[in-house]
């Protein structure tokens, strides 16, 4: 589950680009223009590598951290079938993290460094996972609509230019189709249930509407650098375009269940563009910078997992060898 680039560092972008060998750069861009994928051993501009590491790493962190809000309710899932399904989903998210770390590793950043940067707070992850799953219904809303947003993002990015990332995303999208169905089923169950269940899911939906609107990130600033990232097929659609696709597909599905969207301004223009109230981008930046309701808990849990697993790794790791980044 992942939205868009949460932070884009454009410092030195132009300078770095000027330093590239023009012949190699032209060849690289021609390859992408022909629709060919870039593979790890190919020449690539420094900024292409840097942006992709950042993007894939943030995506990987979002998968592993994203398992935590939903995981909150595993112990108290309503019935064994829901419990098994939620455990399977959480396992999938951890698996997606593994796939994405491997893809990022092909670009030259080690898994150890990525985990260290997550736990120290240097690397970011999707903002929405810093919000709590207050009730069981929150997990249903997350599984349906956050995953739906992620599928929009990932299906588009799977057509990008970097081979290992595309391959990981294809596998992830395949698995997430189960998440979407499972999440929708859980919401349908509550929304068509007793008045208490309906109230519960509406309240969860109200809590999650803002993070859902934040999910694809703030509107992109038009800049030369964004154009370059689009040309390199690192950025496949603007954040607003992805949000629009999401709203187009899911607003009708939300409404058919009788759920009320807590934004009176939300409507579709004649030109097909959705209008909505400002989802409070200040809050978005506050939460990214560590001040959300669950930032401290998410990182503390990750730290605990790493520390509690240390003795296991040490026990297994009687090892003499050298690290080689994965080939593909």
């Amino acid at each position, binding site marked *: 589950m992942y939205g868009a680039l949460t932070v884009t560092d454009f410092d030195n972008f132009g300078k770095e680009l000027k330093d590239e060998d023009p012949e190699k750069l032209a060849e690289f861009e021609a390859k992408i223009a022909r629709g060919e994928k870039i593979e790890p051993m190919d020449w690539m501009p420094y900024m292409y590598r840097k942006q992709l590491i950042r993007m894939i790493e943030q995506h990987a962190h979002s998968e592993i951290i994203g398992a935590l809000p939903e995981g*909150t309710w595993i112990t108290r899932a309503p019935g064994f079938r829901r419990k098994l399904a939620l455990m399977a989903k959480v396992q999938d998210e951890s698996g997606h993290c593994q796939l994405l770390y491997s893809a990022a590793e092909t670009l030259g950043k080690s*898994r150890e460094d990525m*985990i*260290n940067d997550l736990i*120290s707070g240097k690397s970011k992850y999707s903002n929405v996972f810093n919000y709590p799953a207050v009730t069981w219904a929150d997990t249903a809303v997350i599984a349906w609509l956050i995953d739906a947003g992620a599928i929009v993002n990932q299906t588009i990015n799977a057509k990008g230019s970097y081979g290992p990332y595309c391959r990981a995303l294809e596998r992830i999208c*395949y698995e997430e189709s189960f998440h979407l169905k499972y999440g929708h089923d859980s919401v349908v169950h509550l929304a068509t249930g007793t008045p208490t269940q309906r109230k519960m899911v509406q309240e969860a939906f109200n809590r999650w509407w803002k993070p859902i609107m934040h999910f694809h990130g703030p509107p992109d600033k038009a800049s030369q650098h964004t154009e370059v990232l689009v040309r390199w097929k690192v950025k496949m659609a603007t954040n607003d375009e992805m949000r629009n696709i999401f709203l187009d597909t899911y607003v009708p599905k939300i409404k058919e269940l009788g759920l009320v969207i807590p934004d009176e301004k939300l409507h579709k223009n004649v030109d097909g563009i959705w209008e909505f109230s400002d989802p409070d981008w200040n809050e978005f930046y506050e939460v990214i910078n560590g001040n959300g309701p669950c930032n401290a*808990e998410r990182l503390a849990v990750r730290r605990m997992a790493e520390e509690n697993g240390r003795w296991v790794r040490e026990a297994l790791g009687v090892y003499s060898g050298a*690290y080689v980044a994965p*080939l593909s």
Partner: protein
Amino acid sequence: MKLDSLDPRISRSDLPAESEYVPKAGLDQWETFEVFHQTSRGGQHVHVGSVHAPNAELAIVFAKEQYARRMKCVNLWVVRTSAISATSYDDSDMFEPATDKSYREAFGYKNKHIIQKFIADQNSQNLQNSQNSATTVNSGG
């Protein structure tokens, strides 16, 4: 300050909100193995990705969890990434044939037109022969 979580497992763990974390050193996550799966007997093994593991035995365990959790699989291979030698994409022109290598391809042997011409010649020859022999019979009568 202790963390007060909605998740009872986290509250029970009595986690401090802040603590010293010892950064991982290199190889904390071991080396990588490339994973190949076979979806049915008789099929090829196909590369699906990699796993980090301390040895081949555990690499198989992790590969099963990671790559055979859902899609059909009847057999898995794991190979140390460091054991693989690969060509470079920069040298991919080495796969272009240097000269006409059609003699080593099935498409290099197109002869249907020769057979068709042969059959046509045979037919016209036979026709010619039968007309000739008919003439001979007539004139002989």
